[in-house]
């Protein structure tokens, strides 16, 4: 039954800055099944965005370094892929929606050019056989690719900016009229008069519109895996709801696998199939969303749910988690949550601490990193 699009195995990421060194992500194991939406939640600084950007090798290396672990994507370990080869995996293989819609569209290019570029890349790769539609069951195995394809030969040349712009224009035009497809994708993200925005620049659009364009851009490459890094948190609440609804609809329509990063439990509850909870660089609990919300098996998840002002939990006073987020250069020994944990026992302090284990009486893929997972239910 298991057909993961991407599986992260024991991944650790360090930041090395001068003499300082700290582990932003330590030993995270997580996989996204085909057609599933996996959410990752955690407080700011828990390493969830670092994880998201590490999968397509987007982190600046240095200062970031992948300490250990594997990122298996379609049979290939991305950690071993040299950085210069990553472009052929990004785009059609893995794509990403960023948090800040203003910053993630290039301010100097028109909407049409930015979208057409993405569609163009996908078409070149489709033509050269480098990708097939991810909606078809059989995905292309990148590791089997022998020769650098025409697309990469086209995209590699280093040319001055002005000339490059002209070359793409020409290349784009040569490749058939991209406009209908650009319009199609803009309509897909529910932009009503897409013709009117083609010649506009990103700053001339509202935040919500920009995020829609960003989503259209990511989807237009028909990626096998889409990583959404807090795609709605920079937006107003009303716009947030619209974009979220849109994303939910698109998930049904496009049938892409999605890794959804958020700090907002409400957003996750609405979109995700499975949910991972991160704390201080570690994955502390993973499981089906419904079960995890109803029967959390890690004290941190429980505390997080209690602290979240959402309509998805029972009434009662909001609570905060006592203590503070640990310092990642000197994390607590053993279980990293122990200084704040109501269930703390002496053995929680002893390294290496609890590992993720399947919980008793839950779904097969529900795991928790707590020695006393069974006692969590009894907590207030």
């Amino acid at each position, binding site marked *: 039954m298991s057909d993961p699009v991407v599986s992260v195995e024991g991944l650790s990421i360090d*930041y*090395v*800055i*001068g*003499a*300082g*060194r*700290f582990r*932003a992500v330590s030993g995270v194991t997580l996989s996204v099944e085909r057609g599933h939406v996996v959410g990752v939640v955690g407080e*700011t*600084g828990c*390493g*969830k*965005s*670092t994880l998201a*950007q590490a999968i397509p090798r987007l*982190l*600046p290396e*240095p*200062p970031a370094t992948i300490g250990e672990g594997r990122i298996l994507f379609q049979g290939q370990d991305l950690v071993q892929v040299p950085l210069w080869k990553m472009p052929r995996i990004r785009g059609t293989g893995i794509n990403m929606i*960023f*948090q*800040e819609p*203003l*910053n993630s569209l290039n*301010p100097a290019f028109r909407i049409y050019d930015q979208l057409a570029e993405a569609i163009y890349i996908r078409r070149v790769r489709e033509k050269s056989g480098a990708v097939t539609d991810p909606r078809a069951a059989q995905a292309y195995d990148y590791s089997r690719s022998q020769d650098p394809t025409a697309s990469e030969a086209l995209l590699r040349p280093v040319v001055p900016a002005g000339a490059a712009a002209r070359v793409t224009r020409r290349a784009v035009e040569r490749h058939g009229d991209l406009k209908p497809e650009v319009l199609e994708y803009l309509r897909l993200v529910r932009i009503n008069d897409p013709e009117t925005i083609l010649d506009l620049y990103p*700053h001339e659009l509202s935040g919500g519109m920009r995020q829609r364009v960003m989503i259209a851009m990511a989807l237009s490459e028909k990626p096998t895996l889409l990583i959404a890094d807090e795609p709605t948190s920079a937006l107003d609440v009303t716009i947030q709801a619209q974009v979220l609804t849109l994303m939910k609809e698109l998930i049904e329509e496009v049938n892409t696998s999605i890794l959804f990063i958020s700090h907002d439990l409400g957003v996750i509850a609405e979109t995700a199939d499975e949910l991972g909870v991160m704390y201080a660089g570690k994955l502390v609990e993973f499981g089906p969303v419904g079960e995890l919300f109803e029967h959390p098996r890690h004290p941190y998840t429980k505390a997080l749910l209690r602290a979240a002002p959402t309509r998805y939990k029972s009434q009662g006073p909001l609570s905060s988690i006592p203590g503070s987020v640990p*310092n*990642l*250069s*000197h994390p607590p020994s053993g279980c990293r949550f122990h200084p704040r944990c109501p269930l703390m026992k002496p053995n929680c302090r002893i390294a290496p601490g609890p590992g993720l284990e399947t919980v008793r009486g839950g779904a097969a893929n529900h795991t928790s990193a707590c020695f006393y997972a069974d006692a969590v239910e009894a907590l207030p």
Partner: protein
Amino acid sequence: MGGTGGAAGSATPEVRPSLAERGRRVGRGAALLWRVLRANPLTLIGFVLVVVIVLTAIIMVTAPHLLTSYSVDQASTDYSQGPSWKHLFGTDGNGIDIFSMVLYGLPVDLAIAFAITGVALLAGGGLGLVAGFWDKPGTAGGAVSVVIMRITDIFLSFPSLILALAIAVSLGRGVWQLIVAVLLTWWPYYVRLVRGETLAVKHLPYIMAARAAGVKDGRIVLRHVVRNVLEPVVVYFTLDIGTVLVTLSTIGYVGLGLNYPTTPEWGSMISYYQNAGLITSYPWTVLGPGAAIFITVLAFSLLGDGLRDVLDPRSRRVLAGSASRSSTSPAEGEEAAEEMAQETEATELPSPVASAAPPAAEGRPVP
């Protein structure tokens, strides 16, 4: 300094920091300097060279016989000799040792350069503070600010070397004339730099708060604005020493400099030998002082450029996210690293529009 405390000191205790606090500040400064120097080997090289150069200049003023056996303009019996161990840069037709003349020129050039940049910094910086802090349109301060900036803009349109040359023509030759000629073209850069920084600092929350709390403007400027503006100004000053040296030497080369060999200034020295037509047959007479200028300017530029990378707010933010940010202790490193992680968590980098303002401190054209 410590003895002037007294009644005034106890009334406003925060004005006069205790000796311990001063010590701590010096310590912090030293730590910062070390962090900057470690960040880039070139900056360290520049720093070491600057220290050596300044020490040499001090020795040449106090005890020149330690470094050279000749006094100024003293001829040896070796005429027109090439470089050798005895005469590192060779000798000229009169038997004057070029190397010792270059050494004698060092304190002269450095002193003039420091005098010019120092006065330019104080005058230009003062005007910049005024123009930046009291710039509200419609007030007297606003009017003054506009006048200052207009005059500055006009001066800034002239390439400083060209204007300095023109002024030097009118003023004639001499140390003071030289200083005044260059100084007249040098101050406007500092006005623009300090004004830009002041405008940026002025809107920092704590300064707004101090204003709202009724603290007198003059006090805010002296205590808070100056301290914040200091960093970029020091960086620019370091780079500027080199630029002034090059300008001075060009003025000397054109023949408007000082009287070599009585005053051993490098540019005038080159001009003297160049005009004597010695460059093709005795290239060391020109290359010696030329190399001295090159190395001195390079030393100050390496230091200044490295300082700017770390201290300039425009590039500091960027460096925080790259490996160049270094630290003295693991604790500081982790702070930086966490900052970095926060940045990937919640990308709060400013939009490029904000950073697109014309750079005031990007550099003066090198003559």
